[in-house]
């Protein structure tokens, strides 16, 4: 009378796997699941197609009417009117043909273009071993010396001050190696104090003597000749390279048990995050000189770079703090139980995992910072987005050109930022360690 199965059941042979039915595979399945899954989904798909149609029909003619050969915007307009009829609009890329070098190099002396080009190629070479661990580790030696080489090539002048800076680092490293076996604290103190003393007191006289004996100098280029992407990439790359270590230190400081270090980190982060970047840039251009000893007037690009670095570092510190907080407490305990001291635990166990978690946030901050470098226009530097186009528009020939610079500069920014974002995704995939 009861239909329920109560009889014992034993499976004799296991079922082999089969292919799914055809309606559940391939393009048909993809379309149904992604574009026409429900009524609402279908409506949204059609609406999106309509918007795409509008955008394309609106912008395509403008690109199609492009003019590449002209000497002024007026010639562009005549050419477009002649080919496409009165009232047709079109892009006047002839401006780029004439002025592309200003977008890239600003007002850097054209006969010295090889220097920024060499620096840019060097940047790729220096960054490669940092980004791709499969490259030979010896390449990192070049990455270490690259920043000073780049500074010398970009600004020119005597090579000796740059060599002295390198020598200072060398002294610090030697102190660390020699005294490291005797006492760690002493080594760190000497490694910081000795180079600083060297830079403050020995560099001046040494520089004078050496310049007299071997005048190793190339033509100097002043900071106000920098502009366009040369300026944006210099500030951006410098800021990125400096803000990550500073951000890590601030994040660790904020987690520290030591009251003073913790309070300082919190105050620094909250202050910087609470202030608009423009304010900091004005501080860099106007206020900073008041706080420095009279007579010191260091470079505006350097000042901007320092404040941009501080700005990015505060955000990165918070991103990394999120990564640190995401680690289970057991990781800290296991590191402690194995006898690893604070720095070793951080370096070997905590930071590799926390930074991995923070990659999307860190890269977002970097991308945001790189785009924010265009704000330097407000302190009188020629950024590629406003400074340079405004300068070009001031020329009577190109007065009235509007969209073309934005499209061009936007495209370059997009390529650079998209590369950063793709690299971050590659890194996340590479560091993935299955399910944890």
């Amino acid at each position, binding site marked *: 009378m009861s239909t329920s199965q109560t009889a014992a059941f034993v499976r004799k042979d296991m079922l082999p796997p089969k292919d799914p039915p055809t309606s559940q595979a391939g393009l048909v399945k993809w379309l149904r699941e992604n574009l026409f899954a429900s009524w609402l989904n279908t409506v949204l798909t059609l609406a999106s197609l309509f918007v795409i149609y509008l955008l394309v029909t609106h912008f395509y003619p403008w690109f199609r009417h492009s003019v590449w050969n002209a000497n002024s915007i007026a010639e562009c307009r005549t050419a477009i009117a002649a080919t496409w009829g009165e009232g047709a609009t079109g892009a006047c890329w002839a401006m780029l043909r004439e002025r592309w070098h200003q977008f890239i190099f600003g007002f850097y002396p054209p006969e010295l273009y090889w220097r920024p080009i060499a620096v840019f190629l060097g940047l790729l070479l220096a960054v490669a071993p940092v980004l791709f661990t499969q490259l030979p580790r010896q390449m990192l030696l070049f990455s270490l010396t690259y920043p000073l080489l780049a500074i010398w090539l970009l600004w020119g002048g005597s090579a000796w001050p740059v060599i002295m800076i390198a020598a200072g680092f060398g002294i610090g490293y030697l102190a660390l190696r020699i005294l490291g076996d005797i006492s760690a604290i002493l080594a760190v103190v000497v490694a910081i104090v000795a180079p600083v003393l060297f830079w403050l007191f020995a560099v001046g006289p040494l520089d004078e003597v050496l310049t007299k004996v071997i005048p190793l100098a190339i033509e100097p280029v002043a900071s106000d000749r920098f502009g366009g992407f040369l300026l944006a990439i210099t500030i951006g790359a410098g800021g990125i390279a400096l803000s990550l270590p500073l951000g890590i230190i601030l994040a660790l400081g904020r987690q520290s048990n030591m009251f003073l270090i913790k309070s300082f980190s919190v105050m620094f982060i909250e202050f910087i995050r609470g202030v608009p970047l423009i304010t900091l840039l004005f501080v860099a251009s106007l206020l900073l000189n008041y706080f420095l000893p009279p007579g010191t007037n260091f470079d505006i690009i350097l000042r901007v770079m320092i404040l941009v670095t501080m700005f990015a570092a505060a955000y990165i510190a918070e991103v990394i703090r999120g990564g640190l907080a995401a680690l*289970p407490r*057991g*990781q800290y*305990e*296991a590191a*402690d*139980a*194995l*006898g*690893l*001291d604070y720095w*070793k635990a951080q370096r*070997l*166990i905590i930071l*590799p*995992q926390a930074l*991995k978690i923070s990659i999307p946030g860190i890269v977002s901050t970097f991308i945001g910072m790189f785009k924010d470098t265009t704000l330097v226009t407000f302190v009188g530097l020629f950024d590629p987005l406003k400074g340079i186009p405004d300068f070009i528009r001031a020329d009577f020939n190109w007065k009235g050109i509007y969209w073309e610079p934005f499209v061009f500069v936007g495209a370059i920014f997009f390529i650079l930022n998209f590369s950063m974002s793709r690299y971050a995704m590659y890194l996340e995939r590479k*560091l993935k*360690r*299955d*399910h*944890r």
Partner: protein
Amino acid sequence: MTEPHFERDIDRSHMQVSDEVAIQIENMNKWYGQFHVLRDINLTVNRGERIVIAGPSGSGKSTMIRCINRLEEHQSGKIIVDGTELTSDLKNIDKVRSEVGMVFQHFNLFPHLTILENCTLAPIWVRKIPKKEAEETAMYFLEKVKIPDQALKYPGQLSGGQQQRVAIARSLCMKPRIMLFDEPTSALDPEMIKEVLDTMIELAEEGMTMLCVTHEMGFAQAVANRVIFMDQGQIVEQNNPHDFFNNPQSERTKLFLSQILGH
């Protein structure tokens, strides 16, 4: 009264308790804020002892063994491990930690490192042993816990029981003189508990000084030379396993045993 369920005979030839004191805890107290978690703990552990610490959750048993390697700080009293007193002196703490191995409930392997790297990290960075030698030692201990073939995998690719055995091997690579186990089988499926307990039994057979917080009473009866029962932050009763299980003295112990062994 359940009997120990270990099929194989346990080799007791090396399980000898010496007169040498390994850990000495005197009048130790600990508070979390106002909450008095550990009250007047007195405990002397001799070298070669295998001690099982049992008790209801919240009784302070984990906190007590975590004080022994200073994962938790005690506020009064003395803890002397291998002749080194635990104070706020970082040197002493590091010294004790490198002599005392610890196995956690949730394994706490380092997920970004391979099994082999997990095992060689501390020997290389704390003991300053050359990489090659550290790897040989690691392979020796991985073979001992029967997972040498997993050496190049990452922790996330291993089962819970395998991970816990790696965690034991990782501790052993530091050649500790004392091992602490903080509920090593509580996060494991029943099938995997046995493989971890077997590893721990082998360790006991070799004469390792062990303190285990565990609910595995079969293990306690088979291996322990002393069982400690804790409740409300105090040591309520301690005895050899036979008398502890067959003739408990305090009412609290009787109640606890009837609850965990009654079904």
